[in-house]
């Protein structure tokens, strides 16, 4: 169905972008059904639930009867999403036929005590952990075809994993080869922990894995924040964590470190350090916002605007105009000549700019002699 490759904003966009057949196959898996259901907007969830046992087409009009004037836009979004995900199928009478997305009895596997959050959380900094996780998983999934794996299988395995109980050991022998392979990668990411028994091996999902499906929905549980940023760029972090202190050090100048309080300042120098290390202004700002102390989190904005603006300005400061002596070529005789020339310039690393429509290009001045030589040869 979708030929255009959609840049998936989240997991479910990626699921929705799967070809029809694969998508339908995915729905054979209970976990996928559940995860899809949870990812839906509230109104869509309700529609799925109320049509669970309905096996005849329901007219779109009768669904609209329930909607108040205020809710029409939300209603449309919900219906569109359901059709996109093929939970609803449009029928010729312009009605929507609901499919049964999941069996109503979902068996939850053995749950037991959980304990190992810290193991996973250590490498995850700055961004919302789930968002980062998703960032990585997205890459992992989109690369799966290159590794010869079926992305649908991968998605279903990942989702299944997310419904496992945290901290519970699951025997590896229930898994197929592909899953085994994936699991090792996941262990590196901290999603699962592998445990070698005497005879058998086990894997223990961490909270990150079980949160995977949570990151699919908009609602996420948030931990309590600890950072207060003042309009004078000073920063107070009420934390005992060494990790927090280190994260702050990435972009702020830490001035005092008390047992439960870190006092610092955001300076141009400290930010340049961060930018050099590849941390973006947005990441810093969102870190400050996400970890805002409850006292300031109540306010909007939680981080003073002058501070966020300045952070962004300092970042853009780095993007300066650079002067490169160059030559401008135009009036090419034919498209072929133009393309040949631009390819030549590119291959030699001298192409600065090109406009294929108007057949114009700009090439580094150092290459001018070569270019002239090349163009003469073409004639």
């Amino acid at each position, binding site marked *: 169905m979708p030929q255009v490759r959609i840049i998936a904003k989240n997991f479910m966009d990626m699921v929705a972008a799967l070809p029809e057949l694969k998508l339908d196959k995915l729905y054979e898996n209970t976990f996928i059904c559940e995860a899809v259901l949870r990812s839906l907007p509230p109104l869509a969830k309700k529609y799925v639930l109320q049509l669970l046992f309905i096996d005849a087409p329901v007219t779109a009009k009768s669904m609209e009867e329930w909607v108040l004037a205020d809710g029409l836009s939300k209603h449309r979004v919900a219906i569109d999403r359901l059709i996109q995900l093929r939970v609803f199928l449009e029928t010729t009478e312009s009605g929507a036929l609901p499919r049964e997305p999941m069996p109503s009895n979902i068996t*939850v596997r053995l749950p037991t005590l959980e304990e190992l959050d810290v193991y996973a959380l250590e490498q995850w900094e700055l961004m919302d952990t789930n968002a980062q996780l998703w960032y990585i998983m997205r890459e992992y999934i989109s690369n799966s075809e290159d590794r010869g794996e079926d992305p649908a299988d991968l998605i279903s395995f990942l989702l299944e994993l997310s419904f496992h109980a945290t901290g519970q050991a699951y025997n590896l022998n229930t898994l197929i080869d592909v899953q085994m392979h994936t699991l090792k990668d996941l262990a590196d990411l901290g999603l699962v922990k592998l445990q070698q028994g005497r005879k058998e091996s086990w894997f223990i999902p961490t909270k990150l894995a079980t949160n995977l499906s949570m990151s699919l929905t908009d609602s996420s549980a948030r931990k309590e924040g600890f950072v207060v940023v003042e309009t004078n760029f000073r920063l107070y972090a009420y934390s005992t964590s060494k990790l927090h202190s280190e994260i702050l050090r990435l972009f702020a100048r830490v001035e005092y470190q008390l047992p439960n309080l870190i006092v610092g300042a955001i300076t141009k120098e400290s930010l340049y350090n961060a930018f050099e290390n590849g941390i973006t202004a947005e990441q810093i700002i969102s870190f400050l916002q996400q970890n805002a102390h409850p006292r300031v989190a109540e306010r909007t904005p939680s981080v003073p605007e002058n501070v966020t603006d300045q952070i962004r300005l300092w970042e853009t400061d780095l993007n300066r105009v650079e002067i490169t002596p160059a030559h401008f070529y135009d009036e090419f005789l034919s498209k072929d000549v133009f393309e040949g020339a631009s390819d030549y310039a590119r291959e030699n690393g001298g192409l600065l700019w090109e406009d294929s429509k108007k057949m114009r290009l700009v090439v580094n001045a150092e290459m001018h002699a070569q270019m002239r030589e090349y163009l003469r040869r073409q004639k």
Partner: protein
Amino acid sequence: MASVPSKLYSDDVSLVVVLLDTNPFLWTATATATTFTFPEFLAHVLSFLNSIILLNQLNQVVVIATGLNSCDYIFDSSAPSKVEPFESARMPLLYSRVLRRLEDFLGSDERSERSNGAAAAAAPSSLLSGSLSLALCYIQRVFRSGALHPQPRILCLQGSPDGPEQYVAVMNAIFSAQRSMVPIDSCVIGAQHSAFLQQASYITGGVYLKPPMLDGLFQYLSTIFATDLHSRSFLQLPKPVGVDFRASCFCHKKTIDMGYICSVCLSIFCKHHKKCSTCGSVFGQANPEAAAAATDRKRKAPEV
């Protein structure tokens, strides 16, 4: 990339406190009279509970049993699950937990019945006031747990007739729910309507419904009562016709528009009395003529 930081739970995260009517007489009576049995009821309700939890990872369900003599929490999805023997492969853990606790509850309810020695058959109404209070207590605790909590609502699955002796307690519970903005949804599964629940839903802004087809109970539950509070602002849900708040007098049970009200206990009378029959307050007006004149002007009972 980085998701927009959400300060609160998204609006559709719900805490549903379900009050189950476990009046044994209700279920044994329906067993003989109609086709809707207790096991069927349980099947519908359990599926509903499961659906709520399924809709959102953060959704929370609490079940309270409304017995004849006692009420108790039966299930709390947020409580840490103890290691329990996997009883049956036939049903999810939630189900078996609810069933087991329900069995326990019935046992203890019966025991307190015996110790009370009350003649249950005379007034086979379940303890709605008690379970409403339990629900509200739970919700208050959630409110106080911090800024981050799901949106609570109460769902009464009630089949027993109203217990008039619970009037004061039930009304108090209703008003306290109203104050804390907790809607009380009512799904009446008995033979007759419930004036209590009608008022409860009306006052708290919940939905009152008496499903005409009980074998489709789950459909009612999922279509109407599963709707989270956030979505309710976009949807049209069945509205009650309106509650007739006119009162009838205590003395003759006549519906009246104007009458005498005891200034102490708010009892209503259609005629002037010397003494309040409810609280025993004496209405001090010696001269009936003057009293009549005064009441004509003021149109209410004289001060005590």
